[in-house]
């Protein structure tokens, strides 16, 4: 049996470690030598302990003789209590917890090497980072709308600290924009949730779902839905509400944008998926699929067109993040099991690909290469970093043998399966646009003459996390079964939702 202890352990572990990180790092900083090595050991310890707690849930979930599809654990006052907080362990949340831990570890490694031990206040940065990992895992394991909301808002609040880290004017502006949007979004969501609560008398996922399915008068539900969907769409940067994302991801330091895109972004898609698919489905409750299909088409088109005209490379990657929201929405819209798989696979692949791209661009930026023209001939001057970038670019584009292809294939076939071929066609066409601008970038990197020929010294340490992700992309591209077999139970479970 999975108990409350099992579920809360990973969350508590991360939060506790996050609190311990500040004193520990301070003590390490007092030493004269081997600071980085000791810090590395500390984070290694953190992630080993937390992975054990996550693995514990996964093992218990999968080895249970007949795992109930859903498992509710009330925090306060039993399952009948009105405002009990609940956790839920199903195949989706277990999978999300696993990938959050894994990707979080790699991005933390990059932050550690990138920020280094010299910089002031970096211990707080690490602490917030661990806190956010704890919160996104909490989001994944939440079992009712309020718990989900609380963990998710905590994640968003933490993210704004990561964005503020460098305290430049630009990042202040970007953070302000982000905070305004997020606070607006949470107001929307809270309003929507209160209406849902009024309608159903509960916020537990499955009880809400059942109550909504038999609801007679849907007028209020429509209002609630619009508010909730708009709120979560703002946080996921779906197109009409995407304005904060490019600013935020461009202004912040590279490790932050890598971390945010790999974890917080994916968590926001997860929240969207959970709320739309698992609570408001079947779409007979509300015909929301057409609306989200239009939004996803818009997101893909706008994201890719903005990227096509963008000269600043970091901003270009941020626009690709927006386009990725669109691809994820395609799969959410399809409401088919294949779409679920596509989503879950895309969470991992999109996360590591954008993180990889941001990491690499971070190295380029630190060398002073920022715009398209700066990238001229950079491929010859920094061969390894450029190789990693090419791999990320081809994965974005969806070229086979890179993980992005399988992800996009799943997503587009799911759209066709759901009788929305037009959406798949738009997705495919925007992928060609993606190929065009990424290839133009690669052309700049290799074909153009650089201003100076000398080789640039590549930071060896930073290449370690980068190549962990790059190799993961190739392995997942050639043999995706590693992850797909893990996701497969999700499909069966999806079909047996009570």
């Amino acid at each position, binding site marked *: 049996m999975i108990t409350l202890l099992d579920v809360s352990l990973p969350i508590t572990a991360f939060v506790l470690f996050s609190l311990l990180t500040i004193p520990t790092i301070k003590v390490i900083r007092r030493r004269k030598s081997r600071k980085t090595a000791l810090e590395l050991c500390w984070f290694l310890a953190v992630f080993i302990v937390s992975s054990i707690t996550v693995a514990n849930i996964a093992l218990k979930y999968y080895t249970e003789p007949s795992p109930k599809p859903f498992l509710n654990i009330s925090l306060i006052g039993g399952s009948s209590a009105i405002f009990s907080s609940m956790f839920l362990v199903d195949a989706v949340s277990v999978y999300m917890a696993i990938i959050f831990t894994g990707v979080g570890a790699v991005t933390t490694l990059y932050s550690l090497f990138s920020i280094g031990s010299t910089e002031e206040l970096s211990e707080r940065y690490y602490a917030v980072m661990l806190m956010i990992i704890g919160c996104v895992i909490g989001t994944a394991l939440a079992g009712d709308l309020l718990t989900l909301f609380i963990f998710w808002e905590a994640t968003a609040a933490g993210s704004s600290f990561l964005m503020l880290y460098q305290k430049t004017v630009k990042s202040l502006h970007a953070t302000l924009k982000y905070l305004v949007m997020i606070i607006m979004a949470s107001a929307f969501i809270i309003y929507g949730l209160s209406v849902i609560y009024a309608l159903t008398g509960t916020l537990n996922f499955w009880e809400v779902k059942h109550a909504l399915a038999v609801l007679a008068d849907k007028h209020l539900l429509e209002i609630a839905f619009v508010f909730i969907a708009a709120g979560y769409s703002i946080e996921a940067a779906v197109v009409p509400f995407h304005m904060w994302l490019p600013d935020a991801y461009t202004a912040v330091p590279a490790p932050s944008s890598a971390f945010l895109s790999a974890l917080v972004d994916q968590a926001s898609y997860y929240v969207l998926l959970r709320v739309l698919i698992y609570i408001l489905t079947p779409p007979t409750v509300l015909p929301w699929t057409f609306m989200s299909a239009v939004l996803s088409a818009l997101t893909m088109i706008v994201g890719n067109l903005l990227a096509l005209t963008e000269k600043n490379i970091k901003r270009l990657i941020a626009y690709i993040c927006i386009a990725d929201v669109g691809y994820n929405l395609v799969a959410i819209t399809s409401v088919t099991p294949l779409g679920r798989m596509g989503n879950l696979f895309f969470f991992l692949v999109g996360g590591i690909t954008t993180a990889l791209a941001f990491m690499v661009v971070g190295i380029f930026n630190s060398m002073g290469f920022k715009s398209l023209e700066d990238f001229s001939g950079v491929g010859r001057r920094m061969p390894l970093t450029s190789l990693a970038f090419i791999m990320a670019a081809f994965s974005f584009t969806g070229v086979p043998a890179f993980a992005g292809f399988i992800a996009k294939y799943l997503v587009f076939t799911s759209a066709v399966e759901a009788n929305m071929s037009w959406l798949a066609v738009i997705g495919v066409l925007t992928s060609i646009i993606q*190929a065009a601008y990424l*290839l133009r970038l690669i052309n700049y990197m290799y074909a153009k003459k650089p201003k100076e020929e000398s080789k640039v010294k590549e930071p060896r340490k930073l290449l370690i996390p980068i190549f962990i992700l790059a190799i993961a992309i190739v392995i997942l591209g050639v043999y995706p079964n590693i992850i*797909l077999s893990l996701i497969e139970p999700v499909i069966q479970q999806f079909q047996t939702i009570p």
Partner: protein
Amino acid sequence: MGYTLLLVMVLPAMVVPFVYFVGKKSFKGAAFLIVLVCLADIALLLTTVPAILNGVDHRYVESYYWIPVLHASFTLFVDGISFSMAIITLILILAAALFSIDYMHERKGLAEYYTLLTLLSIGLVGVFITSNLMLFYFCWELMLLPSYFIIGEWGYREAYRAAFKFFIFTHAGAIFVLLGIGAIFMVTGDLDMFRAKTALMAANPEFVKWVLLSLTVGFAVKMAVVPVHMWLPDAHSEAPAPMSALLSGVIISAGAYAVLRVSMGTVFPAIMGTDFGGMFLHGLTVFGIITAFFGALIALVETDIKRIIAYSSIAHMGYVLFGLSLFPFQEPVTGTVLHLVNHAVSKGLFFLSAGAVMKQLEIRDIREMGGLAGKMPITATASTAAALSIAGAPAFACFMSEFIIFVGAFQTINSDGFYLVPTAFMLVATVLSLAYALRFLSHVFLGETKHESAIDPPRYMKLAMIILAVFTVILGVWPTFFIQLISSASLL
């Protein structure tokens, strides 16, 4: 031998890191490693010949576990057609690797070059020997990525521009292919070509029509059929000679093979006999004629040594398309596949010898050349063999296959009068090909000597040309081995 075809695929993949690290020390070692792998692959493939000739369905199949969720299994197979294409691909890669030793030796980054060549060989061979559409698409795109970098990095003049054009054109084409493959999966729930063929028979013909069109358009881009041929002249002429040989010999042939295997072999049977089926075939014929004439006429006036050959490749894809449009008769199919094989060898040889001339003289305009026959006898001989084969002269490879295609065409006229005029047109096109081939020979190798100091290229380049020249003659004189194999394969 249980794992023959798996080894054929995996062997190049396994040596990729070795090629890189050996290449760092000595580029010659890397090239020989590729040659060894090619020889091993050829030997492995040859062991499947008895199974092809005597086996069930004249096929040799191996299947492995891959991505069960997507119904994608790692299914490898060879029948006569696949076998012939794979063997000729390996021979061309072998020749290209040998040729590169001397041709590329003063260039930078050779370890990367040979690594990319090895990666390319996985895709090139894989595309011919798999029957799973997903794996097919993987290999299809794996042909594209390394060639993009080889053309861009080691090509001439504005090489990356040409490579960019190549990538965008063929990638956009590949997206159409992917749409088609996805649609097949949607309709049949299967990604195996042979099983999908049976399943598609039951599908709605209106839908199958679009699948067929989408796939064929996608393949036609790679095949450089006329309205979508624009990438070919640039890519072929800017690429380094060994890569041009592979591009022209194998990659565009892969497009033709894909039309034959997937469009015709898998999807077309479902709508054969309907009005649209007939229209589709006639459409292919028309495009074939346009392509053949377009390529041949430009080759007649072009003065850049490699662009002439590039346009002649377009012209030859016109013949192939014409041959394909005579489907499903046995002779034209056999002739078409044989033509792909012959064209691969001859065009590979043609590009290699043109590369040798370019390398020795460092000019590309044929008007500045002349009288090289006496100075570069081996190159001249090789070029002559290639040019005569391309022109369709007897005793050289392409004559035999063109002959079989025309025999098939005359047979088809009996049942479908439409083909009367196209066949006449195609016969005129062969005259044009003789014209540009002779123009090439007379400008470059005959006439007054303009370059006194020109000599034959170094030995490995000579060796590579001699290997392909021998094959050109053998295929012209004794094509029975391949004809027997190819005609054993049944597409219907």
